[in-house]
């Protein structure tokens, strides 16, 4: 990067606002700027069509086609034709001209919706270096449709090779836009691939060929899809396996994984997301819908942060963990199931990447306000909110949060500007701050009332979720201390590991690192003066009680939601139930409890939580899944669920668990 910090207007902590320079120059001259990225030095210069041909002619594909021929009696030519059609549907057709077009449009849009886009300069410099050395994989978190557009926009602006991007097939369906995306480097992946062997083969060979040839940096969402809750999702491993294979087989010397943390002060899709979580289906991605969404673009979405993390060398990480010689005795093109050690490595790596994304993600005052607000749904005095937020700011910083607090602005101004930016979520009336309920047609049923309140809470919760990773480990220690039978470290650790296991679909934890997670949680609490530790015991310090209670309250909605689902499964549901039935029944069950006041947290209505509870139970063998007529069916082992429920509730909020048993 030949742009010095000054020229970029870098701020004290190494960020600069990339829109500032854009606002000073014309959109057209920006779109037609000279674009001279420094390429990967090992790249073989090939066209998009050559890339496709290499895939079709690959030995790997021919092996797979041979296998399919044996299974299905389809002739080779047919299968090849099919593969070719799949490739046509899938493949990108990156063209600089379209990047310029997109750049032009994005320039206009971004300047109007965002007040600033802050990028860390050293991250860009490191990325530029990395791109030249080894194939680079860009791994952003996924919070908005804007994510990949913003990234390509940044890459174009700072002369970095334009990436090719794995995108969901619905995007392709949009007329014109789909084609523009394709030419801007997007390639399209079907959502449910299932056991379509040929599709897997074409896709994986396509991805591998991109990496092997160093065609372009490859970008994909390791979370698999957009997080509806703005909380990190547990990673999907398929794509990462494909991407890493050329390294394991020695076809490239190394691969650099670049975790990228994108955070929006205000997410464009905020209300859409909350409604999706409540079961209102997501509008189909069509060009028409996109055009309608233009009204969204008239709003102000504050600032955005993009943090390019340190490139992670796969070679460095893999040292001593994988024996490459497993590939020495068979042709490398032969389709091979990844070994157990390989699966473990890739899973650990994927989780690590997400932790890195979390560690780097830039948080704002608003995220902390949301944490406080969710504990005060009845409204809170602005002064108290300010006071609590500032207290939380100090705590979060001790916990290592990557907070950016506006400089040279008074705290009250920070608060009030956050409140006004988020007018869709909160309002301030008479010095008190309330959650905003969506306006709607006059008289409403009780259910509609709950629904509206839940939507408001979920919107607010999504902003807490952006910051929740900062608190999860200490909060779990706090909960574990409360539920533990004694102060003994062993007991607390026992409870902690249970929580970690139960919530591992909720919060991203690296598998097999419970001890490290526990240590992390404890030492953060200890360093903040909340707890003390002796050889065998952990105890709350006198002035630490407040923090412990606060941290527990952060997890409370999750715990309550899990308890409610457990209750439903134990007491209401039949032994077996279909996926569809589950999601509608559980919703009406919780709705009833919310109306009756038996359950307090509106977050219990989130379909994401329901899914996660099921996954946790599946993982813990309390529920088993079978496929009946293409429908997932669950059979519930009630005693096992009950046991988990008891574990979670033991000594914890007795009124609910007692009620529940009545």
């Amino acid at each position, binding site marked *: 990067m030949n742009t010095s910090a000054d020229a970029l207007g870098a701020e004290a902590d190494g960020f600069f606002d990339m829109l500032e320079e854009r606002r000073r120059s014309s959109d057209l001259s920006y779109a037609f700027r000279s674009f001279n990225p420094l390429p990967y030095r090992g790249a073989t210069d090939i066209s998009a069509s050559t890339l496709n041909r290499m895939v079709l002619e690959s030995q790997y594909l021919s092996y797979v086609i041979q296998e399919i021929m044996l299974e299905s009696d389809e002739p080779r030519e047919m299968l090849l034709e099919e593969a070719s059609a799949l490739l046509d549907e899938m493949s990108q057709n990156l063209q600089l001209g379209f990047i310029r077009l997109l750049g032009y449009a994005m320039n206009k849009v971004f300047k109007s919706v965002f007040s600033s886009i802050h990028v860390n300069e050293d991250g860009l410099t490191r990325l530029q270096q990395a791109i030249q050395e080894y194939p680079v994989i860009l791994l952003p978190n996924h919070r908005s449709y804007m994510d990949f557009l913003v990234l390509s926009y940044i890459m174009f602006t700072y002369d970095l090779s334009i990436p090719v991007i794995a995108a969901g097939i619905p995007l392709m369906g949009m007329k014109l836009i789909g084609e523009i995306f394709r030419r801007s480097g997007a390639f399209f992946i079907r959502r449910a691939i299932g056991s379509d062997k040929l599709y897997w083969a074409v896709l994986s060979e396509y991805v591998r060929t991109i990496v092997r040839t160093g065609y372009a940096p490859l970008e994909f969402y390791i979370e698999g899809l957009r997080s509806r809750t703005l909380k990190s999702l547990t990673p999907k491993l398929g794509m990462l396996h494909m991407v890493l294979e050329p390294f394991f087989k*020695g076809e490239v*010397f190394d691969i650099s994984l670049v975790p990228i943390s994108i955070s929006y002060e205000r997410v464009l899709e905020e209300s859409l997301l909350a409604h999706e979580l409540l079961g209102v289906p997501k509008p189909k991605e069509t060009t028409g819908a996109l055009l309608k969404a233009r009204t969204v673009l008239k709003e102000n979405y504050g600032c955005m942060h993009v943090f390019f993390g340190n490139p992670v060398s796969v070679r460095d990480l893999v040292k001593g963990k994988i024996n490459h010689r497993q590939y*020495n005795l068979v042709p490398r093109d032969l389709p091979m199931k990844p070994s157990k050690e390989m699966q473990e490595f890739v899973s650990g790596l994927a989780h690590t990447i997400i932790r890195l994304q979390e560690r780097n993600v830039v948080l704002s005052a608003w995220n902390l306000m949301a944490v406080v607000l969710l504990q005060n749904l009845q409204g809170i005095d602005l002064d108290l909110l300010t006071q609590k937020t500032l207290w939380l700011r100090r705590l979060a910083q001790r916990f290592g949060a990557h907070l950016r607090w506006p400089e040279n602005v008074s705290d009250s101004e920070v608060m009030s500007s956050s409140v006004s930016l988020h007018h869709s979520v909160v309002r301030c009336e008479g010095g008190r701050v309330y959650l905003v309920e969506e306006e709607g047609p006059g008289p409403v049923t009780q259910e509609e009332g709950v629904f509206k309140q839940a939507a408001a809470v979920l919107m607010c919760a999504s902003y807490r979720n952006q910051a929740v990773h900062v608190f999860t480990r200490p909060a779990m220690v706090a909960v574990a201390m409360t539920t533990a039978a004694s102060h003994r470290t062993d007991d607390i650790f026992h409870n902690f590991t249970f929580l970690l296991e139960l919530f591992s679909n909720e919060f991203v934890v690296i598998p097999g690192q419970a001890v490290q997670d526990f240590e992390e949680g404890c030492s953060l609490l200890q360093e903040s003066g909340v707890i003390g530790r002796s050889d065998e015991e952990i105890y709350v310090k006198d002035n630490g009680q407040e923090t412990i209670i606060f941290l527990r309250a952060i997890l409370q909605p999750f715990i309550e939601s899990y308890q409610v689902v457990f209750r439903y499964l134990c007491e209401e549901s039949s032994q077996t139930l279909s996926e569809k039935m589950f999601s509608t029944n559980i919703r009406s069950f919780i709705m009833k409890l919310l109306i009756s006041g038996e359950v307090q947290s509106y977050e219990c209505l989130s379909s994401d939580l329901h899914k996660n509870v099921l996954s946790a139970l599946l993982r813990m063998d309390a529920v088993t899944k079978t496929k009946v007529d293409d429908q997932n069916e669950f059979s519930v082992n009630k005693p096992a669920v009950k046991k988990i429920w008891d574990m979670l509730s033991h000594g914890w909020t007795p009124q609910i668990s007692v009620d529940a048993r009545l």
Partner: protein
Amino acid sequence: MASNSSSAQQRLRIIAGHLQKRPEEENASVAAQECKAEAPRSEPSSATPVPRRRQEIMKWNGWGYSDSRFLFNKKGQAEFTGKRYRLSGLILPSLKDWFEGTFGANLQHRSPATPSLNLSAVAPPHLNQPFVEDLKAAGLSVSHDPEDRVFRAHGHCLHEVFALREGRIGRVPDVVVWPSCHNDVEKIVELACKHNVCLIPYGGGTSVSSALECPREETRSIVSLDTSQMNRILWIDEKNLTAHVEAGIIGQDLERQLNERGYCTGHEPDSMEFSSLGGWVATRASGMKKNIYGNIEDLVVHIKMVTPRGVIEKSCLGPRMSTGPDIHHFILGSEGTLGVVTEVTLKIRPVPEYQKYGSVVFPNFQQGVACLREVARQRCAPASIRLMDNEQFQFGHALKPQVSSIFTSFLDGLKKFYITKFKGFDPHHLCVATLLFEGDRGKVLQHEKQVYDIAAKFGGLAAGEDNGQRGYMLTFVIAYLRDLGMDYYVIGESFETSVPWDRVLDLCRNVKERIVRECKERGVQFPPLSTCRVTQTYDAGACVYFYFAFNYRGLSDPVHIYEQVEHAAREEILANGGSLSHHHGVGKLRKEWMKASVSGVGLGMLKSVKEYVDPQNIFGNGNLL
């Protein structure tokens, strides 16, 4: 590109010319008694090709002949001294720039070697007196002169030569003994068993696997058994085209003497000036022209080896037999751990009528490898075909001697222009394959056309005989060049592997990259020279040869860093599906990977053979197992 057999003759002369007749020298501390071989001498050669006191014609702390070395003269130009080689006496004008540019070296920064051996640094011999008495009584030639002992205490690994240059002498053999024939060896081995001394066979001394190093833990008296005086061709069988040869003969003598009778073995490893027949057998050597003549295992018909259990050999000279596992394969590659190879019956061939060098320039290494793969697929490889990468191509160019005529330099310029400008080859990517064809003239020309046609399909351009010949010359002078580098803070070495065809490119790239990355991580100030070439083609794969060197200024323990990097490079080779060694052997340097390479059971098999053959561990050089 017209040529005749003169170039072939010339090349043979180069190698043959390495040797000049020397008067018989009486320098052994005990005079040898003439050995009465059963067979008559095949030629009444008057010269002893390799003298007992090798240090009188060869360097004690570097490669090759004392009279031949590279140096930078007062004008800063490189030249090669002596009269033995084609380069001898010539100025190499571009070597300095290449050297300084590649390594960041500077002629002002010298790191000269200790000029002469400090005898007081050599520990006094730990003699087994009764054994020595018995040897003398048996009339064998024996020495415990420090120079003789130091000369046989090492091969040519970097750390070995580096230590010598610094005047550091480790454990050396206590006694050197020179048998003159098979019976002498039987006597020595018998006495060694009787007196429990450690025997280390010593042939040409060109090992690059620490195979000649005296094991540190050895407490017995160590005896170096120098086979150099067992150097006769005992008979030539023209009906079956075989020759029976004593195993101490060195490559160039064997070839020269056979040539005089109109024959050759065709076995030409790069070390053939100095390496011995017995050494080839003991390490599974490979020759440059194996495509026509085969590797050593294809060439031997019969081997006689003296072991502590007695002599092992087959009972007939049948060309192939099904009599259980081939006992030759216990001997081939045994690296001196089981006994001493004394006599070998080898296949011989008539000297080829016609020989022709050639070369092909490719736009990049990938294309070059693809071409070699196709040549192998069509099974039409010439006697030798080697592909150098770009760095090595440039290295080769740096060794071009000063051209005498303006016309030649004009032609060179024109060639360069044609390739880089007209054909659009990037000078930083192009690479060159060197070729050697052999056979009868018509067939050679036909063969040549076939190979060039294949090359053309991969974008290859014929680039003349000169480039080809220079490529082969490089292999003979590279070891001399290392000594020059060491005078200026540059250390380096070569290593090799074999690998399936589809992994050649990946292995080359990854190993080169690993070397660069490891050097950087270990604080080497300048990027290293990390280069490779594909030197042999097989049906199912290829042999790849790496050169690796770096400037060690600013490093406190350069040899250690060198060894760490080489170790990492070997790990990389193995991780990429390459073998532990194609022809250098395992020695002590690569022992740690033996089990992983041949499986625990495989290693156990080898160990049980060792236990049976040599229960006292008389052949205690500690190699391989």
